[in-house]
């Protein structure tokens, strides 16, 4: 039984003849989080999209449980929240979450519990277009809670959240890691993840 872990070896990305990064190595074990730092355009999002399998790395490999991500249970175990929320503005909060559940499977939290944890209780039947940007963000993060994904990839999860929202998401991330989950995230804010094993990689 291989242990659940993400292993990234010698990853590099070249975009339009510009080397964004080379020789990225890290490994991530249950309970750990990785914070990618770097200025705008340093390749944080590109690295995350390579981790998602959207882009091919120009060299290097990504292993999930010691196997390549294509022939492992990677896509059953990972969830991605990117710049785009991935939720439909014509649907209600509940319809969006039900769809997310149907795509990736259900889980520890019910929809009601997940909504109360991101403090969106009472908005079940609200159309997404009536929600504020921060509320939409919280909903796209609620999608992580209703699915049983071990590995979260979060691209700027704190965008458009207020102080209170940021603290809330940090609590959720700490809880996720403490229950054996893994997170890779990028952020411009100072991330306050006390009590969990946080690695940092700086792209420059």
């Amino acid at each position, binding site marked *: 039984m291989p242990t659940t872990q993400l292993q990234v070896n010698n990853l590099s990305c070249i975009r339009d003849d510009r080397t964004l990064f080379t020789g990225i190595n890290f490994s991530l074990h249950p309970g750990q989080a990785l914070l990618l730092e770097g200025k705008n355009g340093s390749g944080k999002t590109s690295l995350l*999209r390579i981790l*998602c*399998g*959207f*882009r091919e790395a120009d060299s290097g490999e990504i292993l999930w449980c010691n196997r390549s991500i294509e022939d492992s*249970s990677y*896509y*059953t175990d*990972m*969830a*991605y929240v*990117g*710049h*785009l*929320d*991935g*939720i*439909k*503005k*014509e*649907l209600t909060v509940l*319809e969006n979450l*039900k*769809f*997310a*559940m*149907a*795509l*990736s*499977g*259900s889980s520890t939290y019910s929809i009601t519990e997940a909504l109360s944890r991101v403090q969106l209780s009472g908005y079940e039947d609200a159309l997404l277009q009536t929600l504020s940007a921060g509320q939409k963000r919280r909903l796209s993060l609620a999608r992580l809670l209703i699915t049983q994904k071990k590995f979260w990839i979060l691209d700027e999860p704190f965008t458009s959240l207020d102080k209170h929202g940021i603290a809330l998401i940090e609590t959720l991330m700490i809880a996720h890691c403490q229950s054996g989950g893994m997170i890779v995230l990028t952020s411009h804010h100072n991330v306050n993840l006390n009590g969990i094993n946080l690695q940092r990689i700086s792209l420059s």
Partner: protein
Amino acid sequence: MPSLSQSFFAIIQRDLLLALRKRSELINPLLFFILVITLFPLGIGAKPQLLQSIAPGIIWVSALLAAMLSLDNLFRSDFDDGSLEQIILSPYPTSLLILAKIIAHWLVTGLPLLLMAPLLAVFLGMSTAAINILLVTLLLGTPVLSLIGAIGVALTVGLRRGGMILSLLVLPLYVPVLIFASNAVEMASSGLPVMAQLNILTAILFMSLTLAPWPTAAALKMSINQ
């Protein structure tokens, strides 16, 4: 863990619900179809014989253009709001989930044309035998338009102005369907057997049903990688 069929039907259900909420996408192609066909008799004048003989062509060309018009909606909103990324990240085969989207697209844009066609065929003076065959060809042909069109949309969805390229890509592939379908209806109106044309249309339908989702999924993966 939900099964593949649950995800498949969830996508169809979601897309139908979205079509209901955004009615213009549902109505526009149908309205275009009706308008073009009703304008033809006005343009041609009082020549019922001529109208009757070109009716299959008129209906099929209009159906084809109406399908073209609706194609861009197939992946546009999912591409713009990131839903497509989430669908691709699902553990299930992307091609099958995309097939669900194509089926929903046909239910929203192809099926209404099929339901409206008999009325318009009567309006153009087609015989009952010809109308029956027209319906069969539309039933076999319009799903092909959605399936083949999906490949083109998937390739162009990442482009800012993909409309022109889309029609150049897709229209040549629509030509066989147009030829066999309108030929079948024409034959039927003169009382000739049409089995051969219908067989070929059925073959085209099954071929695109099995082959189109794969290149579509691959092209979508390319399109989001930008």
